[in-house]
């Protein structure tokens, strides 16, 4: 019995953390949350469009999966979102709130575009590719190291710092988009001809998807089976324990943020060289933020992230189909996404806690 400085007032009910929930119960709660969310979304949709909810979900499925092209599109979008989610995950596991993925992706994309423009004609394609990958990875990592450096050195608030870095990156990219646009200053982004990722088996996006698939497996193995991944977990769980076993916490923070930024850089590379073949300030398209939710919902597990990113992209594609069919604004999908996420993050409460009613006085 150590010195107890906890307060236990007499109350009628209290909330206790539960440790004993089985995995399938947890998933039932999550599924119920998604179903409830779909009911709410259905009500909202019916209210706005006079569709019946079943038709609505059929329309959504059509919008996401209706044609082969749509399916490829869906998978490609999932892959990119997944890539950014993989990037933020090591930082989150370490309890370092990197909400600067948007900027880190853009900087990676900017580096890629710069290589494509300035080296495109000069280097043979394989070498060009290599240079593109290296510069995007390095620049993403450096961009992410800035807040990490100030965090370890002066304990600057990393959430606010990374957030601000996003908008610096967005403006820099906006600047170069205009500088490089054809004709200059017109605002039409230049199509980047050299250094586009190859088309595999006639599928434009296949290479993106394969790269992200490999990354997912690597991330899973890194986090779960590597020594560095283990260090990340220990630092995230308890800095005191990390100190006790001699982990250099600052070093781990810097290294992990560099990795986080580097993977964001890869996402930027894939977006510019593999998907858009151009650079705009909205190339990242908010994925840096959506990725945070994807990672969180998947409990930082890269394999689950395939599911959560697919869910979110599916909703977005499906909902934009609804808005297209009913000539509603395309932002409809954001509303649906928002509602579903509210329900899922709300449901975590029922997985982690139960409410106990005190019949007698309870302590400890």
């Amino acid at each position, binding site marked *: 019995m150590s010195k107890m400085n906890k307060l236990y007032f007499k109350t009628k009910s209290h909330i206790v953390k539960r440790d004993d929930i089985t995995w399938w119960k947890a998933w039932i709660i999550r599924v119920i949350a998604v179903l409830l969310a779909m009911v709410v979304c259905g009500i909202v949709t019916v209210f706005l469009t006079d569709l019946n909810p079943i038709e609505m979900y059929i329309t959504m499925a059509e919008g996401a999966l209706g044609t082969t092209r749509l399916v490829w599109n869906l998978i490609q979008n999932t892959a990119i979102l997944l890539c950014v989610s993989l990037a933020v995950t090591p930082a989150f596991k370490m309890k370092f709130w990197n909400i600067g993925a948007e900027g880190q992706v853009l900087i990676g994309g900017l580096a890629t575009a710069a290589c494509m423009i300035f080296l495109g004609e000069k280097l043979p394609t394989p070498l060009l590719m290599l240079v593109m990958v290296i510069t995007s990875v390095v620049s993403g990592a450096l961009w992410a190291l800035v807040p990490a450096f100030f965090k370890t050195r002066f304990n600057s608030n990393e959430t606010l710092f990374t957030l601000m870095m996003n908008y610096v990156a967005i403006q820099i990219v906006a600047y170069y988009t205009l500088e490089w646009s054809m004709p200059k200053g017109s605002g039409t982004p230049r199509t980047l001809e050299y250094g586009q990722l190859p088309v595999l088996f006639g599928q434009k996006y296949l290479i993106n998807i394969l790269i992200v698939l490999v990354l997912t497996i690597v991330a899973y193995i890194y986090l779960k089976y590597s020594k560095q991944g283990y260090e990340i977990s220990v630092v995230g769980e308890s800095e005191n324990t990390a100190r*006790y076993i001699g982990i250099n916490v600052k070093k781990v923070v810097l290294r992990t943020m560099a990795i986080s930024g580097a993977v964001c850089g890869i996402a930027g590379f894939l977006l510019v060289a593999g998907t858009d073949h151009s650079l705009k300030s909205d190339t990242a398209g908010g994925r840096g933020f959506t990725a945070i939710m994807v990672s969180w919902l998947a409990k930082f597990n890269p394999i689950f992230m395939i599911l959560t990113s697919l869910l979110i992209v599916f909703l977005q594609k499906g909902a934009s189909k609804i808005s297209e069919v009913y000539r509603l604004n395309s932002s409809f999908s954001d509303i649906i996404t928002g509602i579903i996420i509210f329900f899922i993050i709300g449901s975590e409460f029922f997985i982690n806690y139960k409410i106990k009613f005190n019949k007698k006085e309870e302590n400890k």
Partner: protein
Amino acid sequence: MENVMEQKIALELRNITKTFGSVVANKNVSLKVRKGEILSILGENGSGKTTLMNMVAGIYFPDSGQIFADGQEVEIASPKDAFRYKIGMIHQHFKLVDVFTAAENIVLGLKDEKRFDMPGYIEKIKAITEQYGFELDPNKKIYEMSVSEKQTVEIIKALFRGADILILDEPTAVLTPQETVKLFRVLRNMKESGKAIIIITHKLHEVLSLSDNVAVLRKGEYIGTVKTAETNESELTEMMVGKKISLNIERSEVENRTERLIVDKIDCNSRDGVKLLDDVSFTAYSGEILGIAGIAGSGQRELLEAIAGLQNLDDGSIIYNNPKTGTKENLRDKTPLEIRQMGVRLAFVPEDRLGMGLVGNMDIVDNMMLRSYKKGKSVFLQRKQPKSLAEEIIEKLEVVTPSASTPVRRLSGGNVQKILVGREIASAPTVLMAAYPVRGLDINSSYTIYNLLNEQKKKGVAVIFVGEDLDVLIELCDRIMVIGSGKIAGFVDARNTTKEEIGIMMTKSEPHNSEV
């Protein structure tokens, strides 16, 4: 000194009992304190002093028994209720907002009808400080304050709310001797003006110099109340530590005793300039269990952490004699990693098991790896060995767990400790330090731990055991070092000592620097 107020009882407890699960924290405790009186509650660590007072302050609610305040029976269910009955408690852990001034903290949470009038409050605070002789600048920020000043803020906070019964939990534990003198002067002033004061302590000389009456608790039970004027140190010590209880812990003779760890004149100061370790020197020998006895917070944690590489020192050296190579290494100000790289096989079972020694959310296997995960050149973790180690520990130490992949936070305290000690021993250490390794454990688990420590001793490990139960220390250890306020109070031979002898050394803080 005789006046009318001294007759009136300010607070009375009758037959208070409180249990936490199966642990009885207080059993039928009755005591009373009068107005204009200072009552000391004396007892060892874990004797239930703080729990008892927390019930008066509204933090816990008693299972049974009655509380009377000012002659009326009262029910105190929350700190608010306590304030209503003019009871104020100053806890060991201060509850203050760092960026606020003293005055802002003092008025925090007050809901009087009047306008929020800071200058007025400050006047009132100044009046209180003058009345009782405190030294405090109401406009000073908490983060600029010393511990003693923060304590003053807490006391004034209670007085500001009109507390007539003041409870102080180990108020001198964090103070320098000069600050203690000041505090006692203030407490005497308060007593003169009719306040009832209860001070929780285990320092005998303070009890004798300050209080009118002493109530003694031992292992949750109320032993009795004596008038300070009619008692002496040895009577109080005996009441506090009780008769010797035989535990029948097996103890082997020391063999092949060689110097393993030589701690020489180490000093360590806190950020506030309080001496945490003051000129501490001792030697830990192989094949011996060195016990460290002392009141909690006397520097035990800092001492062990300094050896383990978690605490930088201001002075002194920690020399390790490597039995394999015969080299001497200074461990001072090294990181845990550097210590390991020097080939020093040091095992450390820290006091905070789940916050430092283990990671609660990780399973047993992953916790096994904490010490060894870096081994080998591979970038990948090697889980095979940790897994078999986990299974071995589970089997050998009879750890109750669903499987080796259960997160350790789900295990009971005893099982958590077996995992931690088991892992530390598995690294074949030459020095093993354990801080309160049986705290909160049931009897069987405790004996498992004692046996493990004894086994290590027989293997020639230098074992350092920080404990609080004197019976255990006397039966388990070979030598006992007594520490008080960061200083060494003396060494005793565990085979030829008594609880009283250690008890008196613990509670007096006069240095004896000769090693046995």
